């Protein structure tokens, strides 16, 4: 019953935070709440006995994607953190980290044994295990990341000269 209540509390918190992310107009605040939402989802993954997914959720969503969003926000909106907002976000992050430490410190090592190779499996054969059973995943993810880097580089490359449409317009003006 207590477990059920814990699950319910975290889920309710997740839904409320997702709603706030969508509805808050200030994008910087929405982003801060998105980070907290990702952390809450990470805690949910942890209490569902998926600690590796919890760690990846925390690293990718609350870390990498949040930084990408922040960089885009500063590039497009030119927003600079004000002192007051800075303090609020700082306090939120410290509170979030405390919650994470409290949750993750419970049976940390046992929890990470859930999805490791079966008991008695020699650790030196871990790379073999990884490449035999999870090789396809790793190759797919490698290709994905490579494709993303290529795409982002292509999109953000510096364009030189005028484009095709501008050239056509200039030519038509000259002809007239």
């Amino acid at each position, binding site marked *: 019953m207590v477990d*059920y209540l814990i*699950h*319910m509390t975290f*889920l309710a918190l*997740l*839904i409320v935070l*997702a*709603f706030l*992310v*969508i509805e808050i107009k200030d*994008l910087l605040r*929405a*982003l801060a709440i*998105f980070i907290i*939402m*990702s952390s809450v*989802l990470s805690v*949910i*993954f942890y209490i*569902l*006995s*998926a600690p*590796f*997914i919890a760690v*990846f*959720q925390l690293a*990718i*969503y609350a870390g*990498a*994607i949040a930084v*990408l*969003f922040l*960089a*885009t*926000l500063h*590039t*497009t*909106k030119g927003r600079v953190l004000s002192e007051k907002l800075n303090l609020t976000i700082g306090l939120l992050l410290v509170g979030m980290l405390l919650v994470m430490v409290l949750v993750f410190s419970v049976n940390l090592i046992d929890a990470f044994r*859930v*999805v490791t190779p079966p008991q008695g499996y020699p650790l030196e054969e871990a790379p073999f295990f990884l490449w035999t059973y*999870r090789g396809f*995943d790793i190759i*797919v*993810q490698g290709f*994905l*990341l490579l*494709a*993303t880097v290529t*795409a*982002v580089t292509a*999109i*953000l490359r510096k364009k030189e000269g005028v*484009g095709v*449409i501008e050239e056509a317009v200039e030519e038509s003006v000259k002809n007239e």
Partner: protein
Amino acid sequence: MNELLQLYIPASILLIAMGIYCMAAKRDLIKIVLGIEIMTSGVNLNLIVMGLGSNGVDALAQSMALISMTIGACVAAVALSIIINTFRHYGTTDVRKLRRLRW
């Protein structure tokens, strides 16, 4: 176990619905990408919950959730770079003002 499924599956569907609403109703491009990320989070939660068993979450479900996370991160990176490129050309991230055909 069934109790947890009854709790988590509607919640993940709600998250996906909220993401779709955000993509459909909001006008700022950054907000739309945030909606995509919320939707991806709902999908990940659904994957993990569907793989939930008596001995923890199934390894295949975790693997799929991991791939989904990577795809989510890649989508976010490409979408944000497109947003920056759009901002360079149009000077705005409001979708209503992106109607001009001139690039």
